[in-house]
């Protein structure tokens, strides 16, 4: 094999082990050395591409799928639960703790269940720039303006199959969970909701619902007011 063809083949795939490549390496030490160097280069490349994956990433994906079919599956959910206990364990825990059935009729019930199930999977060490947060918010016609709060997590979640934004805001004592949901979630609205640990409030703006969930012991009782001031809504 001529040198140019050999180099082209190895550049395209340093791990090419076709017979003609093996033969060429056996016949010519320089070619074997070149292949070895390119394999080392590829190992460096591999190393450089090894980006850190967010903590509990797979768990969060599984969770968003397990939360998604809740309303649709309704009666069959028990069967699914039994069959897929490993995936749905979070939902199971939430249901037991809240004494709920496995389906949610109101936005509030769903939000509290989602909050409790997901809060353990949310990694809170993110440093988002205002621009990054606003890119996410812009999909809902919203943006943070001055004095915006410290966001420790912002990601898409599927709220009763509707693509929504899930944010966790760093409070002084307790984190605050915020869901921004397009109105067509199909779940009944509730202005105020709570369970034994959390209080929730729903604000409707434009075609979205802003759900704010705070811990019952959080000394700051003005989160919804403060957030309403920090968010500017595009007129629709």
């Amino acid at each position: 094999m001529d040198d140019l063809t050999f180099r082209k083949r190895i550049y395209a795939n340093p791990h090419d082990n076709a017979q003609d490549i093996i033969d060429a390496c056996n016949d010519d030490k320089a070619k074997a050395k070149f292949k070895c160097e390119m394999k080392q280069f590829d190992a460096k490349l591999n190393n450089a591409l090894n980006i850190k994956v967010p903590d509990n990433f797979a768990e969060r994906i599984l969770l968003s799928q397990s939360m998604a079919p809740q309303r649709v599956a309704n009666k069959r959910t028990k069967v699914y639960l039994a069959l897929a206990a490993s995936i749905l364990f979070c939902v199971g825990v939430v249901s037991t703790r809240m004494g709920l059935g496995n389906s949610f009729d109101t936005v509030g019930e769903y939000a509290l269940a989602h909050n409790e199930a997901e809060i353990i999977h949310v990694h809170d060490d993110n440093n988002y720039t205002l621009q990054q947060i606003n890119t996410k918010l812009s999909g809902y016609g919203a943006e943070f303006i001055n004095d915006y709060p410290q966001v420790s997590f912002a990601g898409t979640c599927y709220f009763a199959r509707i693509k929504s934004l899930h944010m966790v805001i760093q409070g002084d004592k307790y984190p605050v969970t915020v869901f921004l949901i397009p109105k067509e979630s199909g779940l009944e609205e509730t202005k105020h909701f709570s369970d034994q640990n959390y209080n929730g409030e729903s604000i409707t703006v434009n075609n979205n619902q802003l759900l704010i969930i705070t811990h019952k012991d959080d000394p700051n009782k003005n989160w919804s007011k403060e957030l309403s001031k920090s968010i500017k809504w595009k007129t629709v």
Partner: protein
Amino acid sequence: MGNFFRPARVSLSMKTKQIKYEALVRAYSDDLYRYGVWLCRDPNIAEDLVQETFLRAWRSLESLKDQGAAKAWLITILRRENARRFERKQFDLVDIEDSYVPDTISVGSEQEVENYLLRRKINELEPEYREPLMLQVIGGFSGEEISGILELNKNTVMTRLFRARNQLKEALEPQEQYRGIENG
């Protein structure tokens, strides 16, 4: 006989679907995320893309007949989702800085410098060269598989892979030569 077994088969298929899905998420979510970050150059968008990808995968899991093709199938869904992002809300997208370089897993400092340099050079590659390289290195796909995913002729794929590595090598080699002089 057939009817007798049918109900059992229905629940079994649901169970099988869940197991299959969970296995896919566990096996491929990390690679899809890494690929997604290099594709859209924003870790937050990449996270959403992977979530969307798996949600779509769940809905059409029945169409995946060959388990061995699962990774290529997922990558294809992810690329489609990424393309939809541009169709949907072009006006909402904020330009991602061209200089964005993702962080990698922390390693020793010398290795870290080299990694940073490499990542910058990878980032500077034209997307048509970068994408097949990502599919090969992160995805572990063969030339044939890449040509299937990108819907390109295999020779084109191999030429792009050759050019991608060639450009990276050329960009890095002067640095390697000078490093000794500077340090000495």
